[in-house]
C-alpha cells in the first residue's frame, strides 16, 4: 500500500488544493468526506485501521473540555484525535451538504 499523496500533490500543483479543508476545521456536528491522509505511512496505517479511509464520511463529535483532543465519528466508531493530527487529514473539496 503506497500512500505517497505528496507525490500526487506535486504533480497536480498547489492551486487545486489551496482551498483544501482539513478535519481540524470541522465544527461539532459538521461532516465531510475524507480525501487523503497527509501523514507518515505508519501513522496513516493506524488511522486507516481505525476507519479513516479515503471516501469515508467523517463527522466531528464532541471534544475534551479544553477543546482538544476531539472525537470523530467514522465507520461506525468514535475515535479521538488531537488537532495536530486532524490537521493532516484532508477533506474532499465539495463535501456533501448535510
Amino acid at each position: 500500500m503506497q500512500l505517497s499523496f505528496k507525490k500526487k500533490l506535486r504533480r497536480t500543483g498547489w492551486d487545486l488544493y489551496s482551498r483544501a479543508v482539513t478535519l481540524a476545521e470541522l465544527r461539532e456536528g459538521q461532516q465531510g468526506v475524507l480525501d487523503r491522509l497527509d501523514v507518515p505511512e505508519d501513522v496513516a496505517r493506524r488511522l486507516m485501521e481505525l476507519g479513516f479511509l479515503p471516501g469515508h464520511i467523517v463527522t466531528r463529535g464532541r471534544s475534551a473540555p479544553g477543546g482538544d483532543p476531539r472525537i470523530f465519528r467514522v465507520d461506525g466508531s468514535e475515535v479521538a484525535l488531537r488537532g495536530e493530527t486532524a490537521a493532516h487529514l484532508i477533506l474532499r473539496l465539495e463535501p456533501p451538504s448535510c
Partner: protein
Amino acid sequence: MGDCHGCSGATITLKAPSEPKVRKHIVAMVGPPNSGKSTLFNRLTGLRQKVANFPGVTVEHRVGRAKLPRPTPGLHGDVYLVDLPGVYSMAPRSEDEQVTHDVLAGEMKGIPKPDAVLLILDSTNLGRHLVLAAPILNLGLPTLVILNMADDLHARGGEVDPAALALQLGAPVALVSATRGDGVDKVFQFMAGSAAGSPAMKKPLMELPVLNNIPHCRQWATNVGNKTGYQAPAAPLWTRRLDGIFLHPVIGPLIFLGVVVAVFQTIFSGAQPLMNGVSAFIQVSGNWMTALLPDSALRSLLIGGVWKGVGAVVVFLPQILLLFLFIGILEDSGYLARAALIADRTMAKFGLQGKSFIPLLSAYACAVPAIMATRTIENKRDRIATILIAPFMTCSARLPVYTLVIAAFIPERHLIGGLLGTQAAAMLGLYVLGFLAAIGTARLLKSTVLRTNRTPFMLEMPPYRWPTMRSLGLRMYDRSKVFLRRAGTVILGVAIVIWVLANLPLHEGKAPLIADSLAGTIGHTVEPVIRPLGFNWKIGIGLITSLAAREVIVGTLGTIYGIDETTQSEGLQQALHNDLSPGGAIALLIFFAFAMQCMSTIAVVRRETGGWKWPAIQFTYMSVLAWLGAFAANHVVQAFWH
C-alpha cells in the same frame, strides 16, 4: 458434528481420528480491541482475566481451560484457550501484533501452533471488524467467526444473518452475547468439533482480498456485509447523551475531580469498618492462641512473629479490594477512555502520548502489569520512558504503608464542609506527589536521553456499558488471591526470618533485647544513613525487608513491635506513633512515594527492556530521589513543629 445447528450453516465433518491424541488441544482467541474478547474468555474458562472496555488492555496472552459440556472422542482433558492481545491487523508492527502473529503462525516459544481459532468481532461494528477476518481466514486454520454483542446489535435495531455470512466466508459463524451468555453453547460445540477432528474449512464464496491493503480489505468487508444483508445498528444514543455530560466543558472536569475525590474518600473511610473488623479478629484470635499455647519459643514465633507480621498486612485486604472494585467499574463502564481524553492535554505537555496513559493508569493498581501493558506503544523511546515512570504511580502495595502512617500521625478533621477528611486528603496528596514525580521525570527524560517527535494520539471511544457483577467479582477474587498468596509466602517468610534475627544470638539461653539482637545490629548498621531522614533502626530493618515488596515493611514492623516487650501490648499504629517523630513519619511517607521498593518491578523492567541497564538506572534514580525527598520532608516538618 452433524448436529451443529448452532454453527449456522457450516457443516463440520468429523474426520476419524487415526490415533488417539494425547497432546493438548489448543484454541486461540483473536479479535480487535473492544470486541469483548476477554469477557468471552471469562465465560468459556471461568478463569480470572482482566476485562476492560478500553483499547490495548490485554497485552499478555492468557491461557485458560474450557471444560466441554460433553466428553469428546479423541480429546483427553480440557481444551486450552489462548487469549491473544487485541489487534486490528496481522501486520506485525507493535509487539501486540507480533505476539498474535507469532502464536498463530506457530512461531511462539512455549505455545504449539493452535489447532483452531476463535475470531471475535463486534457485531455492532461489523464492517470495520470484518477486515481482520481476511488475514485470519487466510491462515487456513479451522476458525469460528464469533459475532459478539448480539444483544446490543438487536437493541439498536441492527440485523445480521450468520448463515449467509458463513457461506460467504467459508467458515462457521456464531452470533453471541458474551456478557449475557447467549450463544456460548455454539462456541463449545465448535471446540468439541475441532477437538474431535479437524472441521473442514470450506472455500469462501467471496474471494479473500489482497492482504496488507487496508482500503481493499475494507471494501471486501463492505461487499461481504452487503451480500449477507448486514444492517448496521443505529448510533448509540445513550453514549452520545452521556458524553454530553462527561465531556461537558464545565461539568465534565468537575465530574472527573468528583470521581477521584469519591474514590479516595471511600477507600479511606469506607474501608475502615471492615479493616477494624479484620484487625479485631487478628487481635482477639492472637490473644486466644496465646492463652492456649504454653509459654515457649514456638509461641513467640507463632504469635509475635507470624500472626502479628502477616496479620498486619492482611488487614489491608478490604482497602485493596475496594480500590480494584473502583478501577474495575471505571474500566468496564468505558469512563476510563473519557478520563484519558480529558487528561490528554496535560499528558502532552510532558511529552507523553495518549497510549502511555493506559499503562500509567493501571500502575495505580500495580506497576508489574502496567509495565507489561507498555508493549502497545510502538515507539521504543516512548515505551522506555513510560516504563521508567510507571513505578512512581501510587500502586496498591503503598496503600498499607500510607494508611498505617497517616492513621498514626494525622489527626482526622473535616475539610470542605465534611466532604473530605484530612486523612483522605493526605492520601490524595501522596497520590498527586507520585503523579508529579512521574510527569516531572517524563519531562526530564523526553527532553534529554529519550527525545522523540510527538507521536499522534489516537484513541477509540467505546460505548458506555454497564459493568457486570460477574466481571467485577472475578477481578476482586483474583486480586485477593494474589494479595493473600503474597501474604502467605513472601511476607510469611520475611516474618519468620525477622523473628529469628530478632531472637538471636541467645543471651544466657534466653532471647536478647531486640536492640541487641542480629536484627537490631543490622538496623543499627544502616542507621547512620537514615538518621538524617528521621528514621530509627527499627524503620531501618523495615526498609531493608521492604526491598522485596513495599507492604512487607508493615509486616516487619508488626513483628518487631510485637516482639519488643515495651510495645508488645500496643497496637502497631500506637507503637509507631510513640516510636517515630512527626518529621520521620512524613519523611517515611515521602520515601515510599518515590523509592522503587519492589523486586517484581525490577525483574519485569529487566525483562521488558532486555538488560540490567535501565532497571539499574531506575533503581538508583528513585532511591536517590526518595532519600533527598525524605531528608527535605524531615527537616521542613521539624522546623515547623517547634
